[in-house]
């Protein structure tokens, strides 16, 4: 199987920077922002975005982590049992602009589960979606508001996001 690197460390850094700018532009600043990263890698990407925003605006938006295992639509069909991790959302989402952050957007089911989860915490003013990679093949009518890179993939290919925090290197590869 061939491995293709579609994003290297430098590009990732610039992409995250660009996304942070776009978020600030659309939301007219950082004031009502709440950033929530979807486990596992979404959390680190969310962290970097929050840091960048702080760099740019001087305000660091509150950060939360979301585990969507209990909202999955397929949990009784899987042969492996994903461990339920902790969800920590230490702020109110009521009337706020929630920015959901995930590493890869594929079928859209994870995003759907995440939206349902957020709704159980309150009624946000808006939910916006950041993804580092959009690899197509949507099964639900879901779109990302901020996309790092869009790439056409085959269903039998795998898109892997590697981050310094979890994998020792920053890169996105297609296997």
């Amino acid at each position, binding site marked *: 199987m061939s491995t293709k690197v579609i994003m290297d460390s430098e590009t990732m850094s610039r992409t995250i920077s660009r996304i942070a700018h776009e978020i600030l532009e659309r939301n007219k600043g950082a004031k009502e922002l709440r950033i929530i990263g979807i486990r596992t890698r979404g959390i680190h990407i969310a962290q970097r975005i929050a840091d960048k925003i702080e760099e740019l605006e001087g305000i660091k938006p509150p950060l939360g982590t979301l585990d969507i295992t*209990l*909202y999955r639509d397929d949990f*009784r069909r899987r042969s492996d049992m994903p461990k339920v991790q902790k969800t920590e959302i230490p702020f109110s989402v009521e009337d706020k602009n929630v920015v959901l952050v995930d590493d890869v957007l594929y079928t859209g089911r994870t995003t759907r589960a995440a939206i349902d989860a957020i709704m159980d915490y309150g009624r946000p003013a808006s939910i916006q979606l950041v993804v580092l990679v959009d690899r197509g093949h949507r099964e639900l009518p879901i779109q990302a508001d901020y996309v790092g890179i869009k790439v056409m993939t085959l269903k039998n290919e795998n898109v892997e996001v590697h981050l310094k925090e979890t994998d020792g290197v920053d890169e996105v590869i297609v296997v």
Partner: protein
Amino acid sequence: MNFRQKHILGLEELSSEEIKFVLDTAESMKEVSERDVKKVPALKGVTVVNLFFEPSTRTRASFEIAEKRLSADVLNFTPSESSVVKGETLLDTARNLEAMGASVIVIRHSMSGAPWLLARELRSSIINAGDGSHEHPSQALLDLFTVREIKREIAGLKVVIVGDISHSRVARSNVWGLIKLGAEVRVVGPPTMIPRDIEKTDVKVYYNLDSALEGADVVIMLRIQKERQESGLFPSLREYSRFYGLTRERLKRAKEDVVVMHPGPINRGVELSSEVADDVHSVILNQVSNGIAIRMAMLYLVASGGGNG
């Protein structure tokens, strides 16, 4: 690891990894109970039956809340309301409930082994909410969870269990759970109430409460039932509380940060002196929310993973 059990009947059959997995899952479940909307859709469309042959408001309520927080459809079935009074067997009762679509049955029964009968004969997942003198896994898991919360680690702790061990399902489940997680377990009670050969499980047997309490980290007091005195196992409640009742004075032998627990309801003045009972009360209230989290974890794991097994 994968938690691949279709049933949770007791802690004897679970490995230490499986027990830890349940406790870790419960941690995440605890968060659900702390939000405004205390619900997740994990068990949506799953029918759970609470089949309680013994009266129990607390355990049943705890299971019921846990089931509802997971969005399950809940059916409560108690014998006084039902055909069991007319002589229907346990199996027939359970089969009828299964036919109505129940896929998880939570059963509490006065006879040891009742959940095993159901697990053998039915297709549903069975959760044991207490069978006779045998096991009470959700209570023990909840005790382990609480101890872990307070003491951070269970391995190496000196845990003392006091009271009518022979007739206590809470004691048996706790013995299995604590030993598997590496604690040193001591059981104390009148010799007539210590089960035969229990030393074979690696617990230390004491007949003297004071010596058992030396250096204890955790003390679990069991409830004394009046019927035991009537069946001749000890002469009087007064004598029992003199030798086996916990007082502040006696507690001084334990470690300073000792945690005292009781599965409730407490017989003030018998197992615990009034002042100790007040201290214990605060731990008990904490255990209520832990209990719901533990039961949510058990239901989730059994309904999702094991069903495919």
